[in-house]
């Protein structure tokens, strides 16, 4: 389980880094999205990977057998904020496309 999770995070991060270094705005935004998925999974994994354990405290249950609720709360916040800022970036990207007529990140067309 840990291996699969870490491979998934690693693959998404490397794809994301490669994409945000590309010159097209669409590639940059997909790269940022992939990176934010990787980071969200990473935050989730920080609490320890456990299956089928809810973070609900009841009487007579030791806390060590429970999932850590803090990373789950953090990841929810991070998802919401990441989603909002990505949507905002998408608008700016479209505005740039409209103003410059190209989807290059510097607003210039490629040298032919």
């Amino acid at each position, binding site marked *: 389980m840990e291996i699969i999770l870490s491979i998934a995070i690693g693959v998404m991060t490397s794809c994301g880094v490669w994409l945000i270094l590309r010159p097209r*705005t669409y590639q940059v935004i997909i790269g940022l999205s992939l990176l934010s998925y990787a980071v969200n999974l990473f935050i989730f994994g920080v609490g320890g990977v456990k299956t089928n354990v809810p973070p609900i405290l009841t009487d007579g249950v030791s806390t060590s057998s429970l999932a850590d609720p803090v990373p789950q709360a953090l990841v929810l916040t991070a998802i919401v904020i990441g989603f909002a800022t990505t949507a905002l970036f998408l608008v*700016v990207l479209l505005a740039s496309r409209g103003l*410059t007529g190209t989807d290059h990140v510097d607003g210039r067309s490629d040298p032919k």
Partner: protein
Amino acid sequence: MNGWTHHLIIAPILIPLLAAALLLFIDERQRVAKAMVSLAAAIILCFVSIVLFEIESGPNAFEGVYLLGNWSAPFGIVLVLDGLSALMLLLTSVIGVAALVYSLARWHAVGAHFHTMFQLLLMGVNGAFLTGDLFNLFVFFEVMLAASYGLLLHGSGPLRVKAGMHYIAVNLAAALLFLIGVSLIYGTAGTLNMADLAARIPQIEPDRRMLMEAGAGVLGIAFLIKAGMWPLCFWLPTAYSAASAPVAGVFAILSKLGIYVILRLTMLLFSDGPSAGFGSTFLLYGGIATLIFGTIGVLASQALGRLAGFSVLVSSGTLLMVLGISDGAVSSGALLYLVSSTLTISAFFMLIELVERGQDAGANVLAVTMEAYGDADEYEPEEGDGVTMPGTMAILGTCFAACAILLSGLPPLSGFIAKFAMLSAMMGTGAIGVPPTAAIWTLVILVILSGVAALISMTRAGIRTFWTSIEGTVPRVLVIEIVPVMFLLALTLALTVQAGPAMQYMDTTIRTLANPKLYIDAVRNAAVIPGVEFDTGKEGH
């Protein structure tokens, strides 16, 4: 601080938030109503900051800890007010009022929702200064960044959209690094409350310490991007010079927010224990590189906007370098420098737009060409009108000269006092107490050289703008545009006159910061208000 004044701690967050929400209900066409609400909120915020600052600078100053939701410290989120955060709140609200008044002349009307975004920016910045929790810091950082994205694009145009796109991309990547750092720290230390973290870090097992330090390093990179440390700063001059004037004026505080967080976290988390002094060498060399890069940039800038952008880098570089030395006396000089340079750069950004209003786009380039090839038909002044200078130009010129003096650190104004305080402490009259080494000499020379570069560049720009202006047209400047600039510059004058008490405040602040136990105990011992405790859930509902 008891009774109702205790609740004032949360006011710097609530006032802008409520104002921003209220502003959304007012139709975009009712400009006067919007402006009034926004201005009233900014002025109330300023008064609250002054009250908080007074409390902190008083004789019985102690850390005001505000437990949100009345939950005790490591479980709930806390707001912490100490000398440093009170100072930064005051600086923010003063610059906020000045930039807002300036914007009322014309800038607030060139796009939608200016006032809402402005208030949300103030809320994010104030929240980041007050919070005592790392993840809460992330949330306030994002509030501030989201508002700043909108404000940078305010006024639109290809240049702003391009600069805005780069700014957003860089800051989104920085936010991801922030999250990685925070989660690594949580994974190793098991807490995000800053005071709790400071108490736990010395006890972390050695095998986890590396991971914790890696997390702190990644977190630091996120703030250094905001502060503009070389080589993470290439976005900054472009973004700041593309922003509209009042926005750039208030952005001057954003790069200081990065510096604030680094100062706060290094002094709180890494002051003793096995990780003591973590990252200070990195800050020192990074600061030196930033200072050199900023100085070269200042010398190379033709446009005034870029000159101001690189001045931000010079200021950041100086501060980071000084934080890297991590010596008490030098740091208190640096705090004074932080206040002085923020006021200066903010005033300078707003002044630039007024000065350039009288010139055509490209006039600067033309001026350079004419310097090189000579003017074919020299303008011969007629007898008697040689010395007439319009009043507007005189005021603008005086403000420009004041900015030049402040940026280069020449005597009458506070730029000099601040640099003097830092340099004299570096030279050995401070707590170091040893004769200056070659390394210290290098730092001193770098700071002085950066001042010389600012002087050369500002003189060149001033001569070109005010004395050999090609068209000779006088820019039409409204009173409410020049008054905020003069107000900020007058504050630096007041800082010079009151340098003694100001330095004393900075000294006390740094001494409090240097003893993290005060902060930790204040947060840990903060008592919940009796009688309004929440149900602890034993009954199960």
